[in-house]
């Protein structure tokens, strides 16, 4: 069983991600946002479970619903909110939008670009650099169900299998790519079979169980660091809001959302902690309050932060 303290920590991070997400959605609906943004509601167990499995020397390239990973990895809520609000203090210094470009190699985080699924070959390259130098490190990234139908998915997994790279991919199967359900994306959503043909170890986990995601990722990362080759983990979940802030997701059957609401990863883990006697309601309530305060502070700071000076427009195009 996972260390109880770690399980409580999981809750704290998930709650922080959820609180961030709710605050963000509220702000954008109030017109206090800038541009569009993506909610990761429902993806907290994946982002946190995977993020907590990473070792200090591992590198991760999260995508647009993996807020939890950024947070766990040490990207502060201030820098992320700052990014979303186009502030000079944001992770990309006003250059990139929402969770895009939220990277910091010092934290072992590579920021993603829109073009799906570019993080895959990039992360394979990181893994290959570990192999080149004989370092016991692993590189991890994520892809949505939608991103798996793109050429880069195939090219990356083929090479990852060929070279048995220390590479871990989490497929976040959340049933939809924007408005397009799985059955309009592929003949059959057999992700493990698809990855298996490349000589890659595969696993399927409940993407709404932070404990299960964490366990699968921990095992995969350890194997990768030990020279045991790549792993692809399918984590099944549901995108609980629209594709992006403007999208009402009318195309999702209400019943489907209700069904998944009952499996909410944050509430579920909370139930597990109390039922298993790992944490009391009071302890968890305190974590909830802490999360709210942490996010309130971050929002206030981000909103106070300056916008970039237009004279810095061309700074940083080149190294």
């Amino acid at each position, binding site marked *: 069983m996972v260390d109880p303290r770690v399980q409580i920590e999981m809750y704290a991070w998930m709650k922080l991600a959820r609180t961030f997400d709710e605050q963000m959605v509220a702000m954008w609906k109030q017109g206090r946002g800038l*541009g569009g943004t993506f909610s990761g509601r429902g993806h907290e167990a994946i982002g946190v479970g995977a993020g907590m499995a990473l070792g200090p020397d591992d590198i991760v390239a999260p995508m647009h619903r993996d807020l939890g990973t950024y947070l766990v990895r040490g990207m502060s809520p201030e820098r992320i909110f700052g990014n979303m609000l*186009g502030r000079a203090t944001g992770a990309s210094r006003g250059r990139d939008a*929402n969770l895009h470009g939220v990277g910091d190699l010092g934290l072992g985080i590579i920021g993603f670009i829109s073009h799906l699924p570019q993080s895959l070959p990039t992360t394979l390259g990181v893994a290959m650099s570990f192999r080149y130098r004989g370092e016991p490190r692993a590189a991890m990234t994520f892809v949505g169900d*939608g991103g798996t*139908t793109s050429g880069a998915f195939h090219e990356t997994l083929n090479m990852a299998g060929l070279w048995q790279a220390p590479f871990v991919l989490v497929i976040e199967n959340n049933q939809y790519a924007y408005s397009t359900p799985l059955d*309009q994306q592929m003949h059959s959503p057999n992700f493990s079979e698809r990855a298996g043909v490349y000589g890659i170890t595969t696993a399927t986990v409940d993407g709404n169980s932070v404990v299960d995601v964490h366990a699968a990722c921990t095992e995969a990362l350890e194997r990768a660091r030990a020279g045991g080759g790549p792993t692809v983990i399918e984590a099944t979940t549901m995108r609980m809001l629209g594709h992006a802030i403007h999208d009402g997701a009318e195309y999702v059957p209400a019943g489907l959302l209700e069904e998944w609401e009952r499996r909410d990863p944050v509430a579920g883990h909370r139930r597990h902690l109390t039922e298993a006697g790992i944490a009391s309601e009071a302890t968890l309530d305190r974590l909830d309050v802490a999360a709210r305060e942490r996010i309130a502070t971050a929002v206030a700071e981000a909103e106070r932060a300056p916008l*970039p000076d237009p004279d810095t427009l061309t700074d940083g195009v080149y190294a």
Partner: protein
Amino acid sequence: MNDNFGFTDAPASAGRELTYLEAIAEGIRLEMERDENVLVMGEDVGGDFGGAFKVTRGLAARFGDHRVLNTPIAELGFTGMANGMAMMGLRPIIEMQFADFISTAFDSIVQFASTAHYRMGASVPWVIRAPSDGGIRSGPFHSQNPEAWFVHTPGLKVVAPATPADAKGLLAGAVRDDNPVIFFEAKPLYRSVRSHVPEGEHVVPLGKAEVRRHGTDVTVITYGSMVHQALAAADAVEPDGISTMVLDLRSLKPLDTEAILTAATATGKVIVAHAANRMAGVGAEVAALVADEAFDALDGPVRRLGGADTPVPFSPPLEDAYRPNAEKIATSIRDLAAW
């Protein structure tokens, strides 16, 4: 954004008005009615959803799912697929969800589609609709203006309407053209511009520029969203006694060299402006053309305004610094007029 731009040739008040977006939608619908070889494909275009910008909303209900095909995320593959469909006589209208993702389909466009007729006499009559341009805080991957890549590539045609009427008319012209045509839609105009659009059949031929405003001192050559900025700039400098001509290119490939040279010669002072990155952009081609073929008529340097040599930044002060706008164009007009 200036959405009351009073064209000399098409006053905004005459007749039925549509937004730029509605005009595109109407253009698609009419072409689908006219020719059952015309179909729509792309990510999320189908069903009740109708695409990220809702341009194709209602088409599936009207024409059936088989004519409005939702594709997986596979731009290279589905554009390549459109090559095969088009060679068999279909006329796919492909929606790139954002013009930025057209780079993902690159080989299918710049290698296959562009060369098929030259190599084997097979025409590839598709249209790629590419929602492009920025100014709306969408960041580096939802704001691009990648037209120069395609203008440089032989065998393609490229259009970039600035008005609702042209959006409808060039869409029809593009669908009926027997070649691969990339149709750059200016996202900032989607809902901000509303003006007269002819009802029923309305076809604007590819390759013809249009003078949007006559003038005698300085010529601004431009296209897309910058047409509106240029017109606003022309208004702004009028009180200074500067008379500005504005030429809307409409087609970027083929370029209307005759119209360009006529407009350049008329004033002898030329500014080329576009939202795309300035360096090696389409504006460079236009400026170089003028500097070669209208050299004798030039009374001043050929100026160019375009995006900075940076990705399109997200934050308002940066994006505003990045992009040309009416004010910057007006400054350039004044400067050149005084040359």
